[in-house]
């Protein structure tokens, strides 16, 4: 089963993140995604887009294309940008053994994406930038309960 792909282009502006979450929420709802699945998809797309805006473009102007669709038993989210290349799949895991009060407060976005999604693939965008493709099965259980 597939549904039509929904696409959105936003300016690299943190104030546009709510629209990105809204797009993914709409696709998840029309795909009858269970609540925990929808929560994971929304979390992942927000963290990924936020990282591109804050760290990729770093205050410079730019754009992000976001697409979401149901493909078979999973929802696939694709983000494209023109920011300097960065592969989040190679970022180190935070040290969870360190008590949270003594841990660096940032750096948790990629950790949350890894826990939310089943697959994460990064590739350089032809002509410059990044393509990030993430997917999650329509499984009602969070990953840690499977």
């Amino acid at each position, binding site marked *: 089963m597939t549904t039509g792909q929904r696409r959105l282009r936003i300016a690299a502006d*943190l104030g546009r993140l709510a629209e990105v*979450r809204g797009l993914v929420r709409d696709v998840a709802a029309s795909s009858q995604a269970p609540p925990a699945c929808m929560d994971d998809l*929304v979390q992942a797309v*927000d963290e990924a887009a936020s990282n591109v805006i804050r760290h990729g473009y770093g205050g410079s102007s730019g754009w992000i294309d976001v697409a979401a669709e149901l493909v078979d038993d999973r929802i696939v989210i694709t983000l494209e940008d023109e920011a300097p290349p960065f592969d989040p799949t190679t970022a180190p895991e935070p040290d969870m053994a*360190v008590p949270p*009060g003594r*841990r660096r*407060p*940032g750096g948790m976005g990629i950790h949350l994406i890894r826990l939310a999604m089943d697959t994460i693939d990064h590739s350089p965008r032809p002509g410059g930038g990044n393509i990030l493709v993430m997917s999650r099965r329509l499984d009602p259980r969070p990953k840690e309960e499977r």
Partner: protein
Amino acid sequence: MSLETKTERVEGSVPITILALDGELDASNFEEVIETARRLYSEGARQLIIDLEKLTFMASSGLVALHSIVQVMHGQEPLDPEGGWATLHGLQGDRQSEVRLAGPQPAVDRVLKRTGLDRLFIIHPDRDLAVAAI
């Protein structure tokens, strides 16, 4: 959906300030929440309950806000979230009781657990139980 904050003072065994978050806490608005906590501290708040019952989404930047609010309520300046390990000082990492959380929805609760930030807070099922526990 944006974020609305509402503050309220209640009298328990000690004066308690409740900061209720309604909407979505993300990278566009987390600094405003820290600013609100800073103002509350400067007005004398020393016991804070953050009511999360109507918070439908929390990004990792929301975790930075919660972490920073703990520091603000301990009279410290929040760490630069991008500052790295070298800037760390202060809190010893144990669960503290000056800032408590109440009523997190499943999506928000999962983010707290997945990042271990639940270990920094006493988390109550709702604000009334949080008030009663102080």
